[in-house]
């Protein structure tokens, strides 16, 4: 059945229409809930269209010239529809829809005008993300990439009166910009070498071995830098934990399922190009695995429930990138999809807990299972998925990633990822035990969240289970056969992590403090985020402030110095010349006589 390209365009257009509508029609926006309903309606339509496109397996490409020139347009805009983009369409619209519904309840005590602003931003964000996903070429992808970054800034800093939120938003923007600089440089270099931005043309050139450009590795590395920033790879991961200053639904949407996955999506989309530079791919795998391990260690000592989830996201993004680097891009993408589901679930559940208890600190919670059983159940489902326990979806995607890395003979990354799996299970169950079981610390009356919040939670939990079962029935992804010992290994690692957490936090058999002091150096570093934030702050202060001090010095001593010297010179010259005006007429006659003599000289008397 041939489908009109208008359908993917509809998916893209609905959120944009909603954004325009809300941005322009002030009174509607200021009603708060009204704006929310408009936005939700738009995205529901988008979601329906996306599901339709995906289930029909639609493949198409349609572009319009943007910057015309002789010999074909320099840049185009349009849509590129294939299974990869279709899956992302569904993920993005689904999670956005659920988050927007959830937000109606979560932000119910927000001022209406403020809520309207929130939904305007949400619509803009969905539009940007979809434009990125559907981009047929690097240029459009970059434009929407930046737009997504802007929305991230707007949404992280949604409560802009809070200084911490404003700082976090600026930090996110800055750090991702560092990566984006590399990205745009790489894009332009690639264009100057090949003459095109479009993916299909580039992939054809790669096929025909016509892309043997000198410095291709550097170019692809620069492009990869964009993903480093956006997908929070080391060392540009420092913005993601701080981004938790934004509302929890925002964290669920942007920093779990959609924006941060843009980097992974980009690498996956341009995989034919990266395949030409295996060195860069290996680097990607190592950095990804290292990021995963590093973030996992930091999650183990974190007490803020959202921060734990943030580090967990960084860690899982590392998994995805490692898979891409190992040449197992489909595995990484599968993990992206499953992770999007259960991480959003975890975030939204954490939001319900925070909403009920009023604090983010897990050590001020406890025993919440009795008060909020439904939330507890879905949270545990998400945890099991994240830890990689079958038959939930996370198990299959994680196993695929590990298998892919092993098949590529990347032992170092494999070991790092395996250790990370252990730690993942550990820190997630740590949170579960401390938050939902044990002694109750929380004051007030924690209660179940309203249905508007619980509905999305149950839906996501169900999807996690359903997707997992489907994957189990289909029997593995792609053609790579993982080694037989892999599934038992990953299950074993998950169980080991669970056992460790149970022993330390539920049973009290092992004292966490003793473990911490035993691993004192590691514990110390992890708590201080390995000094990276301090390093960035120091660099920023050092470079920018040092530069500004230098400029200030130059301004004071050179620029002002020249001016001061000129004025002093003028004053002194004036002072000395003043004596010519003696007031005595005879001196003036002298002057006239001198003038006459000069005239004689000028008239060349001696000739």
């Amino acid at each position, binding site marked *: 059945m041939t489908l009109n390209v208008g359908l993917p365009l509809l998916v893209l257009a609905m959120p944009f229409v909603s954004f325009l509508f809300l941005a322009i029609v002030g009174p509607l926006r200021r009603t708060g809930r009204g704006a929310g309903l408009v936005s939700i309606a738009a995205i529901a339509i988008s979601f329906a269209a996306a599901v339709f496109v995906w289930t029909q397996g639609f493949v198409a490409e349609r572009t319009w010239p943007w910057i015309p020139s002789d010999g074909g347009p320099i840049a185009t805009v349009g849509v590129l529809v294939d299974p990869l983009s279709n899956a992302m369409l569904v993920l993005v619209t689904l999670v956005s829809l659920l988050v927007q519904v959830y937000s109606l309840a979560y932000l119910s005590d927000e001022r209406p005008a403020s809520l309207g602003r929130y939904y305007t931003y949400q619509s803009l964000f969905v539009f940007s993300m979809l434009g990125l996903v559907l981009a047929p070429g690097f240029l459009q992808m970059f434009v929407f990439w930046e737009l997504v970054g802007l929305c991230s800034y707007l949404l992280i800093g949604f409560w802009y009166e809070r200084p911490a939120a404003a700082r976090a938003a600026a930090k996110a923007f800055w750090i991702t910009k560092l990566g984006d600089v590399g990205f745009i440089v790489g894009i332009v270099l690639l264009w100057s070498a090949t003459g095109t931005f479009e993916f299909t043309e580039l992939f054809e050139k790669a096929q025909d071995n016509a892309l043997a450009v000198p410095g291709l590795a550097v170019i692809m590395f620069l492009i990869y830098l964009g993903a480093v920033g956006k997908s929070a790879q080391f060392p540009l991961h420092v913005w993601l934990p701080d981004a938790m200053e934004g509302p929890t639904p925002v964290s669920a949407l942007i920093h779990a399922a959609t924006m941060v996955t843009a980097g992974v999506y980009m690498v996956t989309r341009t995989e034919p190009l990266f395949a030409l530079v295996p060195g860069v791919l290996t680097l990607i795998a190592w950095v990804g695995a290292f990021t995963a391990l590093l973030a996992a260690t930091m999650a183990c000592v974190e007490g803020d429930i959202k921060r734990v989830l943030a580090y967990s996201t960084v860690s899982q993004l590392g998994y995805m990138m490692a898979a891409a680097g190992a040449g197992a891009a489909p595995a990484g993408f599968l993990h992206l999809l499953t992770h999007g589901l259960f991480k959003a679930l975890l975030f939204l559940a954490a939001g319900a807990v925070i909403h009920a208890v009023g604090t983010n600190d897990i050590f001020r919670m406890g025993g919440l299972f009795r008060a909020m059983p439904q939330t507890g159940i879905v949270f545990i489902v998400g945890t099991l998925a994240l830890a990689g326990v079958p038959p939930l979806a996370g198990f299959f995607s994680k196993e695929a990633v590990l298998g892919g890395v092993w098949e590529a003979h990347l032992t170092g990354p494999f070991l790092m990822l395996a250790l990370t799996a252990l730690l993942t299970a550990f820190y997630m169950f740590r949170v579960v035990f401390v938050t939902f079981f044990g002694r109750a610390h929380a004051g007030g009356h924690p209660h179940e969240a309203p249905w508007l919040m619980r509905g999305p939670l149950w839906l996501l939990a169900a999807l996690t289970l359903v997707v997992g079962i489907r994957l189990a029935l289909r029997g593995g992804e792609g053609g790579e056969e993982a080694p037989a010992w892999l599934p038992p290994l990953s299950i074993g690692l998950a169980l080991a992590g669970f056992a460790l957490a149970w022993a330390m936090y539920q049973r009290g058999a092992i004292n966490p403090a003793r473990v911490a002091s035993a691993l004192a150096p590691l514990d110390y570093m992890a708590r201080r985020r390995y000094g990276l934030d301090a390093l960035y702050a120091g660099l920023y202060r050092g470079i920018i402030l040092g530069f500004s001090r230098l400029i200030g010095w130059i301004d004071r001593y050179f620029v002002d110095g020249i001016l001061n010297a000129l004025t002093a010179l003028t004053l002194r010259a004036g002072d000395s010349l003043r004596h010519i005006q003696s*007031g*005595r007429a005879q001196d003036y006659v002298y002057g006239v*006589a001198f003038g006459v003599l000069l005239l004689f000289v000028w008239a060349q008397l001696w000739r």
Partner: protein
Amino acid sequence: MIGLSSYLVLAALVFSIGLFGVLTRRNAVGILLGIELMLNAVNINLVAFARYNGDLIGVIFTLFTISITVAEVAVGLAIVIAIFRVRRTVEADRLDLLRG
């Protein structure tokens, strides 16, 4: 054979001497005397040229300059007297109110 140039050189000499007087005299009236000499030299020049070129323009010019000089001396001395009344001195060095 006293040529035109002799008269002109003579006039130049008198002019320079008058200039010397203007530059060095301390008394204001002394300066005016120097000015008189300079104007005199100019007159000699004019008449010499009139004689050697054969027309009367120089002579008429001289008549006028003599008259104007007389008027100028009168007014100048009146100013000197007025200054003397106020400042009780006509020494040129003391008259420096226009000092910058």
